[in-house]
């Protein structure tokens, strides 16, 4: 059986010139869990996420994904694990020169072994899964609304049936109804496919609905990791501001009510 620990971050430092973003960050993410990274603006959440995808190289320390070190492994090995994760970028990052259909089909076509018929069925299924009707499949990304871009981007992230999903602000820019169905979709997928999800979010509702565990980035390090219950009761200054503020209380209350019912 594969190792339980999917992502390991060991002693990670990030420094831009004089400015230190991360100071000795350690984090382990297990298979099958949904971990949310929270922290103030500029606390380096997105940077940490990008380091987990191998887009940025930390100044010091190591990131291992699927047990493969992103810094010290052969390019071939890193290439192999790249097919096992999907990424949803904050702005969607759809290829603007390709239609919606081709955007989702691209990763499948790159495999070079999947025939066009199966690609068609899979792409339409994935698009249907995120709530995009077939008639939008021929549109260009520039003609889509912000929410649709996000959903198409999710369909593309899921095209290769990843085991690990990175979400950068998945519900930012979606209307409440769409956020809700987005959250439900991720939940369903997570159960069906034993997906591991790492997500950066500011949206308390999403955070509370999805996360098994929460990691809080503050003052250049991870100040707390744990289940939502553990985090909420933490007395750290940033955490109490984050969750005990007016908005946080409201969101937590809603969850508590839902649990009582």
């Amino acid at each position, binding site marked *: 059986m594969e190792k339980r620990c999917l992502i390991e971050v060991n002693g990670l430092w990030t420094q831009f010139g004089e400015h230190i973003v991360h100071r000795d960050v350690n984090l382990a993410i297990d298979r099958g869990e949904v971990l949310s990274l929270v922290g103030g603006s500029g606390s380096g959440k997105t940077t940490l996420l990008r380091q987990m995808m191998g887009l940025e190289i930390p100044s010091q320390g190591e990131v291992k994904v699927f047990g493969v070190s992103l810094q010290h492994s052969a390019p071939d090995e890193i290439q192999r694990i790249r097919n096992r994760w999907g990424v949803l970028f904050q702005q969607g990052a759809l290829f603007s020169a390709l239609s919606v259909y081709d955007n989702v089909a691209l990763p499948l076509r790159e495999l070079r072994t999947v025939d066009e018929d199966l690609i068609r*069925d*899979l792409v339409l299924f994935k698009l249907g899964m995120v709530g995009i009707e077939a008639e939008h499949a021929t549109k260009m990304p520039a003609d889509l609304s912000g929410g649709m871009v996000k959903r198409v981007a999710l369909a593309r992230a899921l095209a290769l049936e990843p085991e690990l999903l990175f979400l950068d602000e998945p519900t930012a820019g979606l209307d409440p109804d769409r956020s809700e169905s987005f959250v439900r979709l991720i939940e369903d997928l997570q159960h069906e496919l034993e997906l591991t999800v790492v997500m950066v979010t500011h949206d308390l509702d999403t955070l509370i609905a999805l996360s098994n565990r929460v990691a809080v980035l503050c003052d250049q390090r991870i100040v707390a990791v744990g289940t939502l219950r553990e985090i909420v009761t933490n007395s750290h200054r940033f955490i109490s501001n984050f969750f005990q503020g007016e908005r946080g209380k409201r969101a937590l209350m809603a969850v508590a009510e839902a649990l009582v019912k």
Partner: protein
Amino acid sequence: MPQSSVLPRLEAQLRSTSRPDGAAGVELSGPWILRALEPELANLAAQLGEFGRDFNRHWDLSGVTRIDHAGAMLLWRAWGGRRARNLTLRPEHEALFAGFGAPRPLAPPPGRDGLAPLRMLGAQVLTFAEHARHFVQLVGRLVIDTGRLLRHPRNLPWVEISASIYRTGAQALGITALVGFLVGVVLSYLSSQQLKTFGADIFIINLLGVSVIRELGPVLAAILVAGRSGSAMTAQLGVMCVTEELDAMTVMGIPHTVRLMLPKVLGLAISMPLLVAWTDSIALIGGMVAAKWELGLSYNLFLTRLPDAVPIANLWLGLGKSVVFGILIALIACHFGLRIEPNTESLGAGTTSSVVTAITMVIVVDAAFAVMFRNVGSF
């Protein structure tokens, strides 16, 4: 760490069985996930298709350890877009198949059109007319906005104009000098070889002087500037269009004609003649060096004879032309920059069209100048 524990060999297995009651069956085991199926996909699909033809065949999927949408879709297709009649499935895999329905049609591809070439020609003519209309509109807007600005000259974007002169002029000194010098050398070298055979060595001064000052200097500099600054202007405006920066300026009440276009147009109108004067001098120096080398013509003689050989009108004509070129390049760059749509392909295409159009227009206008001023600057 042993790699095998991280990336184990995955194999989806497919085995034909016969059931106790005599019916044909097929047993699937192992992980039926895309990553495991992908290397053998064509083969597996063919086998599954074969099994799927017998609709009463019993499918036993209880040995499947993991299955994802791609694996499930592959089976679904083998069953002909419906659930197999006799199917044993692990309960946790049930949900995967629940989401599949009948295959959905994609929008049909557009049919062939017999009139396509004619339609294309028509579209091209219309596009051209559209470009012309937009260009005229743009120039008109610029003139109106500038006219309004002239009543309050303090509001002129002086800093932007000076930045534009620096970027399009000062920073282009190196490349125009290099190209000018080399063209001067080549022209002088080739001409002097011909002139030597006629014993008309001294006419190299007339030849070089007139051609460089009147034609080559302005056109060369304009082509370099169109490639260098024109493309940069188009790309800058295009990206600003894409990122909604132009809209942000509009809602703040800052007309982008004044703040973005005017500095570019004025900047190039000022820096172009200066660049041309610079290119002319360097090209003449190049020609002078080559003439000395090839014909033994002294620098002193070259410089003293030059004013007599080339009437001063040629210089004014060259510099005047270059002002027009500068304005033209900047206007064309802005025209294409403002038409860029929010996608990467449009940005590339727009920049290319901008440079190609600018260079073409420079040469067309240069020809017009040559015809209009054919009586000026000769003896």
